[in-house]
């Protein structure tokens, strides 16, 4: 493994014009499965962004709470309606928007923290490194869901922003360990030693030489991280401690129908299917990226 990373590090020094990200993209586009994944994800993201234009109804409107509630799927409401007579398709479309947004934002938080923590720990070394790693071990031993339950129970009235923050705060442990490993390996790599010999500052070395080599684990972690957050958010919303009611997220819609699951099956099925599809595509993409970086 260390041999491989040094290899790719060497190439990136030799060919500064093409960024590691571009290499990754070029490589995965060779595989048909990842092309499909990218396409499907693109469509879902587009649907999320264009939700106000695409959704056939206002996701929050309750047109007729007596006559139009709990309707099974039909032409007028392909995904049925919920107990408030709201159109489930429209809510699933808006849900895509919110669920993806939460996934991406929380992952950005995790990435920032994970890279910072791992880089500091790896670069500092010694006692600091040992202490930081022990703390990390402790965090890694608490299953993420349990940690989140603890947090969300403590702050029951969370805004979306806070939810994103907490999802992000609990998602960086794995990545920071990988980053630390990479930094440790790179610290003594020849080109870094060379840069140091040439009088480059610590910050410059970190920014110019070490960080670019972290792109591959970060990109992989980001892709899989978004998938993970989407699933977690849905789980928390299902337990009733995630996204608050007036808004629609995929987990939230399932929760809305959870007390009548036997009769309102469409409320669990459709948002769930879309969620599985999204997560599947993200997983395909994440693995293709990993393969692209690991196997030359």
């Amino acid at each position, binding site marked *: 493994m260390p041999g491989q990373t040094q290899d790719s590090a060497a190439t990136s020094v030799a060919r500064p014009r093409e960024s590691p990200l571009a290499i990754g993209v070029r490589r995965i586009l060779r595989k048909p499965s990842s092309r499909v994944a990218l396409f499907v994800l693109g469509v879902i993201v587009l649907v999320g962004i264009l939700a106000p234009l695409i959704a056939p109804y206002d996701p929050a409107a309750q047109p007729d709470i007596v006559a139009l509630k709990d309707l099974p799927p039909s032409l007028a409401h392909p995904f049925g309606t919920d107990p408030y007579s709201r159109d489930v398709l429209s809510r699933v479309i808006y849900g895509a928007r919110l669920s993806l947004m939460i996934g991406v934002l929380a992952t950005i938080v995790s990435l920032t923290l994970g890279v910072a923590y791992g880089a500091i720990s790896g670069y500092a070394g010694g006692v600091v490194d040992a202490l930081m790693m*022990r*703390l990390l*071990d*402790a965090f890694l*031993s*608490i*299953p*993420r*869901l*349990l*940690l989140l*339950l*603890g*947090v969300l*129970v*403590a*702050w*029951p009235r969370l805004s979306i922003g806070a939810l994103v923050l907490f999802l992000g705060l609990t998602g960086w442990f794995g990545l920071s360990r990988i980053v630390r490993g990479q930094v440790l390996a790179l610290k003594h790599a020849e080109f870094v030693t060379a840069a140091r010999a040439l009088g480059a500052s610590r910050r410059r070395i970190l920014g110019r030489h070490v960080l670019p080599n972290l792109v591959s684990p970060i990109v992989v972690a980001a892709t899989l991280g978004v*998938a993970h957050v989407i*699933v977690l958010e*849905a*789980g928390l919303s*299902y*337990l009733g*401690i995630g996204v608050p009611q007036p808004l629609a997220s995929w*987990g939230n819609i*399932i929760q809305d129908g*959870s007390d009548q*699951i*036997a009769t309102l*099956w469409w409320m*669990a*099925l459709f948002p*769930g299917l879309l*969620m*599985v599809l999204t*997560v*599947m595509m*993200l*997983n*395909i993409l994440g693995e293709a990226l990993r393969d692209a970086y690991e196997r030359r």
Partner: protein
Amino acid sequence: MLRYIARRLAQAAVIVVIVATITFVLIHLAPGDPFSAVMDNPNVSEKVRETLRAQYGLDRPVPEQFVKYVNSLAHGELGWSFSHDRTVREVLGRALPNTLLLMGVALVGSFSLGILIALIQVARRGSITDHALSGLTLFFFSMPDFWFAILALLAFTYWVPIFPVGGAVDPVMHEYMGFGARILDRLRHLALPAIALTLLASASVARYQRAALLDVLPADYIRTARLKGLTEREILRRHALRNALLPIISLIGLSFPALLTGAFFIEKIFAWPGMGYAVVNAIATRDYPLVVGGVIIGSIMVTVGSLLADLLYAWADPRLRSH
């Protein structure tokens, strides 16, 4: 080796202490009052509530509560669960065997199934079977635990009601059954949650194992074996699988958090009276000690799981044995 074990044990202990601190701090920032939860009654006065709070030490400052808590934790006591009117130890002690049973069955089941799937795939790599199984395992791997559990519950207790609904035994008749019938009753109740958790967990095992086998296959000794005239199937069984089993041990350790998380949702949805069920229900009643106790026990389970896996790995891997 002994020193390695001692070091790993000390690490594990430190981890548990840190975990206890973190969870305690988090949960005690909560603004609610656990005793008002039960009162939908206009006739209950504030005085009564105050008495209840004083009785449970909730009127003490948080640092004092924490000192008390750590002290009792050191003595193996996890506090008093006021929603159950029992010690947390008793509540979790009753629930833990059920969780361990569910996780144990799912662990064995998912590794057997996962490895089997991986073997089939690798034996026929590139075939339609391989691709179909890859798709299937990816599908299960991507599925939220709770969503699959809901669908399974819907399908097999409602649409095609062949399994009983929730619980570990038939609450009405179990006490009146003979020995054999009781075992059967338990199995009937265990079946659906265990199958659900097994299917969910086997997806990642299969995917991991397939990759591990493919990594090993081009290795020199397998090429040698091929030259010796062994069939593909024999090579897989005798050489590749054996070498790919080592990573399996570490995967067991790694799969604990996911298995536990899965068990939480499965228990909640199938009303399986385990730890996850107790903790999730304690969230609604804001039973602080029970939630903290659950998080700590869960973390200990994960720590012990990875500890065991590490030790097993060290024992199995000759390169590490001399350590």
